[in-house]
């Protein structure tokens, strides 16, 4: 089963996303900030990461940067930013850091799920093709 990591410091927001993902039949794990998220990526090896950007301790972009520099074997892990930062500079910064997608809050859950489902399909196809595992 596909595992999705949700990194979000706002409890209510996190809860709503987790519910939506679980309803779609995905295995969801949670983290409250970038540092926790990085630990969880290394220990649990999720298939997809959905992360906020503005968070205490370590923000989302720093977390992705850390991953790509220090853990290149995990650099291909699909990373979706879901953030309230909507200005163009931030979108460019996030995508340049290597994110798969950049979604802004408030997000339409249909759009979010379409993105996640697309990623899930790609991962399953690769597994079937024997590219992973």
């Amino acid at each position: 089963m596909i595992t999705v990591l949700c990194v979000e410091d706002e409890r209510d927001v996190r809860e709503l996303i987790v519910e939506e993902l679980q309803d779609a039949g995905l295995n969801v794990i949670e983290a409250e900030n970038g540092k926790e998220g990085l630990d969880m990526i290394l220990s649990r090896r999720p298939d997809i990461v959905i992360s906020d950007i503005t968070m205490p301790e370590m923000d989302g972009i720093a977390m992705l940067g850390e991953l790509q520099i220090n853990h290149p074997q995990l650099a291909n892990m699909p990373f979706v930013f879901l953030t309230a930062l909507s200005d163009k500079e931030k979108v460019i910064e996030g995508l340049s850091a290597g994110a798969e997608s950049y979604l802004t809050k408030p997000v339409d859950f249909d759009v979010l799920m379409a993105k996640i489902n697309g990623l899930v399909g790609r991962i399953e196809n690769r597994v079937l093709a024997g590219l992973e595992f």
Partner: protein
Amino acid sequence: MPKMTWSTLPAWALLACRDILRAGTSDHRLHETLNDALGIITAIPELGLGSNAAVYVADCSSDGHKLFHHRQCEDVTMPRIIDPDDVAGSFPEGWGRSSLYPIPLCVDENQPVIGAVLLFGRTAKRLSAEKLSILRIICQELGRIIVNRIGQGGSLMNIVELSTDEIYIFNPRSLAITRANTTASIRTGHTAAALTAMTTASLKVDMSEVEYRKRLEPLIIGRCTNISFDCYQRRRNGTVYPVKVHVWRIREQETDLFAEVAVAAADQRKAFGLLEQVFDAIPGGIGVFDNRSRLVMANRRLYDLMSIPPEQFPPGSRFEDILRYNAERGEWGEGDYEAMIHERLEQAELGLPYSFEREKASGRSLLVRSEPLSQGGYVLSYTDITLRKRAERDLIRDRDELEETVRQRTAEIEAQAAALEEALTQEKNINAMQRQFVAMTSHEFRTPLAIIDGAAQRLIRKRGGIEPEFLVEKTHQIRAAVARMVELMESFLSAGRIDTGKVELVLSACSLRKLIDQAITRQKIFSQGHRFECDVLDLPPVVRCDALAMSQVITNLLSNAVKYAPRAPDILIRGWEEDGFAVISVRDEGVGIDAEDIPKMFQTYFRARTSTGIAGTGIGLSLVKQVVTLHGGDIKVESQRGQGSTFTFRLPIRGPSKEPAGMVSVSEEASAA
């Protein structure tokens, strides 16, 4: 015309003859006797000569000079009478025969003529032949007196007297003058008595007594009968004139005596007078000193510039004395005068040209120059350079002032540039902070919006079989998010109001304890992970303040404490009373603040570096500070990075002492909140 004789003379003529004889027996000197006689002759009313008569005597002792006695023109030299018997024919052309009528002076008609009584102008023509012949007889008496006097043993003195040159009879050993003639008195300005108390050497300006004696030596040892030399003599009034001196050895009554004849040569005197005039015309001061540093000649300006009295320092004065006079009056400032005088004299007598500048006590500046003279001695010139010096000083001062002005202007411009740059930097900082604010504001609104939207979407998806708990939970999330947005909006609005000065404090007696309790209760809803420890029992029971604004202040500080201490759950709120103030502090153990960020903490839009990754607008604390300030209180923060922060604010218990100018209007509310 009957020839006049003694027996036929009228009484007035006899009286005149008697008076003339009496004058002749007086102890007056010859020239005085001539004068007396002339006075008697011109005073005879019957002749009516007035002052138009003179006695003219041939002086056989001198070379070509005559004595001419006249009331108005004493001491006039005249050419020698070539033929003593032809008095009238002996006068030069220019004198005009028609205006002169000479009556020969002689003992009788058979004796030689020794002079004449001269009648000027028309005087002789007005006299009758009779009166003229009476006058001739009277003049014979005068002639007798002259012949008598000259023929006497004291004839030497008469010759001396008659001379138009200065003649001094002096003792060759002591140089003391025993006799001096009238001309000497006239030339030197000393009386005859004064002269006999002096020595011949003391009259000389440019030679010492020793030098004078040296000159006389050949005469004393008998190697020659007379000597002559040029020198300068000093008058009583200090002025100097050049003379040619002849000294003869004479004997009088077995005593060895010398006679000195000082001839004032007309050319030399003229040249000297011209030199004196030139000297005086020179704008600078000039002094000529001899080889023994004695003043030979000086112009008036020198006395003026050296500030020395001319009567005290006539020619002949020692330069040393002049220097000492000035040194003692403090012209040279403090110091060992004698050493300075000695040094100055040495410099002067070195025989080399030199120059220096000196500022006198009066503030006058002098340029002193010295040029050596070929025969020894030197010429000192003093130039007044006060104006030049002043101009130089003015120029230097102007230049310094100009430099100072330029320096000041440069400094001003630099200061303006710095101020402008600072203003620009500040402007840039404010712009950056405002951009950050806009970004953060958008973020702050989007987060609760995301919750509301997400909850709503979830409700729609579950619309088929919504369980009551699910509905309650989502509704609760929506309401909390809306409350958060309202709070956010309020803080923006408050900030805007304070910025535009439209805040109205509604003062009332409030219980801060109650406000704090309420704020903690609200905060707990949003931050269940934190523990609030409250110690506010020492707060005064009531404080005059705006309850709503103060509630906002406390809420803001509490939510900050929670927000910036995500991993440290303990938050301590304390309250107490101090010097008429209510003091409240809120302490967290969170991220803390860098020391250099602390002074900027209450600036609008400013966010500390330690706040990275934590949502915020930079408005809250600036709002808090403004509200506290409006209440007449203050706020401070103590913090270190990673060590948490303590915000402490004070409010005057009796409320703001006066209305803060132009910022706020305070209205009273009758009942307590």
